[in-house]
């Protein structure tokens, strides 16, 4: 009996010694080996969204993001935006009147051609003249919003899809922001909280 007690006290004291720092930030600092969660955790359902490999790497390597082109109604743009004359009346308002352009504020308002490629409407174009695929629109946004892009690549801006582990798949800029008026709109909350019981 005495032996069991002594052993118990010993094990408790050892346990305390191991975790004597008691500070989670110490635990975090010590953990420097990347864990390969993809091997250990079987994600029951694979992500079904159409994704594309991002050209930039994050701290853990390559990652994927949601595609954009398959969400654009009437893509390809060159179906209408070609050299042939458009015969339908009011074609432009019918096709694009839903777009509210509110990007850049009153000081530096953007127009369509700030981002869209004049010569090849299926693509975007950067300030330096590089053609950008619409699926990689983060390259466009990152020109001005470089801080947000850095955070997005690292994981402090935007969000992952469904899983915290496994292959990293994140939302694209345009998954959450309307590129034509990117600010989140005022709206009613989904629910409310009852008063706190005092």
């Amino acid at each position, binding site marked *: 009996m005495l032996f069991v007690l002594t052993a*118990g006290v010993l094990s408790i004291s050892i346990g305390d010694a191991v975790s004597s720092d008691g500070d989670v930030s110490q635990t975090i600092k010590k*953990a420097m080996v990347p864990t390969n969660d993809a091997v250990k955790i079987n994600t029951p359902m694979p992500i079904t969204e159409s994704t594309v490999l991002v050209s930039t790497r994050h701290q853990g390597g390559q990652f994927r993001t949601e595609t954009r082109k398959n969400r654009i109604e009437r893509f390809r743009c060159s179906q209408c935006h070609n050299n042939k004359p458009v015969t339908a009346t009011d074609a432009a308002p019918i096709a694009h009147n839903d777009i509210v352009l509110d990007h850049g504020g009153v000081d530096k308002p953007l127009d369509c051609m700030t981002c869209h490629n004049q010569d090849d409407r299926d693509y975007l174009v950067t300030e330096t003249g590089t053609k950008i695929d619409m699926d990689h629109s983060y390259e466009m946004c990152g020109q001005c919003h470089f801080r947000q892009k850095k*955070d997005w690549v690292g994981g402090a801006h935007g969000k992952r899809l469904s899983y*915290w582990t496994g292959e990293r798949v994140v939302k694209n800029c345009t998954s959450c922001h309307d590129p034509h008026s990117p600010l989140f709109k005022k709206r009613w*909350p989904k629910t409310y909280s009852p008063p706190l019981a005092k």
Partner: protein
Amino acid sequence: MHLRKNKGCRTNQTDNHCAGKQCDRREFLKKAATAAAAGSTAMISGCSNGILSPGEEFKLQWLEYFKKYYRLMTPVEKMETVRRLERLAKIRKGVDVKIGNQEPLDDVLYGYAFNVTRCEGYMECVAACVKENNLDRLSNTQYIRIFEMEHGEMTPDAGDSKFYHEVPVQDHFYMGVQCFHCENPPCVKACPTQATWQEPDGIVVVDYDWCIGCRYCIAACPYYGRRFNWNEPQVPANQITRKQHYLGNRLRAKGQMEKCTFCIQRSRNGRLPACAEACPTGARVFGNLLDPDSEIRFVLKNKKVYRLREDLGTDPKFWYFID
């Protein structure tokens, strides 16, 4: 001396020799009671046509009443109680639930970060949490509370948590508060029956059936992280989340304590908690603190972070950060 998280369920089974005697007595009582129940069943069904006979529900409930503390159960016993609870849910609610009891993953310590600059107060997380965790609709129980605060405020004491108007409001920011899964949790120390403890992956959980409803933990928690079932929780059968966990969102009863479990039924399967998945602004970051490549580690390394009431020494694993 305080209980450390490393004394998780698995180690406790071997460590806790002193509990063996208690288990034996419990085992004896259970067997005796089961025998008595069986005897009375036979007796009653022998002399009537079954109207008074204790049904399946009664038998299951009887066995549930005499089951062990979750951390002392063997894997077989865990499986048995899970089966019973699934059957009881079917009998009482007519719902086919799937209750899991996944063990914590190795080399994982869950952490959470909340971007106070990004949150716009849309409350999508609260709604998702209520749905996912089968929270009581009658008393409108919510694990998450969003505070609307003026710029410059640091703690939610001065904030408004009952707002219901169009959001976001000019010159205000929003701060979500829920269980912080402290590394040094005061609620665990306060519990007289050890019904609440910290798992090796950092999640503070409650064995609902071991909770005696004394609510000491509510008093001990400095963050208003715990919720008590003052009434029998009511969840419409068609809204019950069927994928459940023994320590997570399984159906609770009146008089039991409950709290955020980082959606244990989801996170241990690699999924994001419901709040993080529902957030439309990406203000919620969840991940493994022990993985240097994870998003949460990026936030801790590169952003300005703070924790609520850090001076109390509770060491929460929930950080707030600003862009």
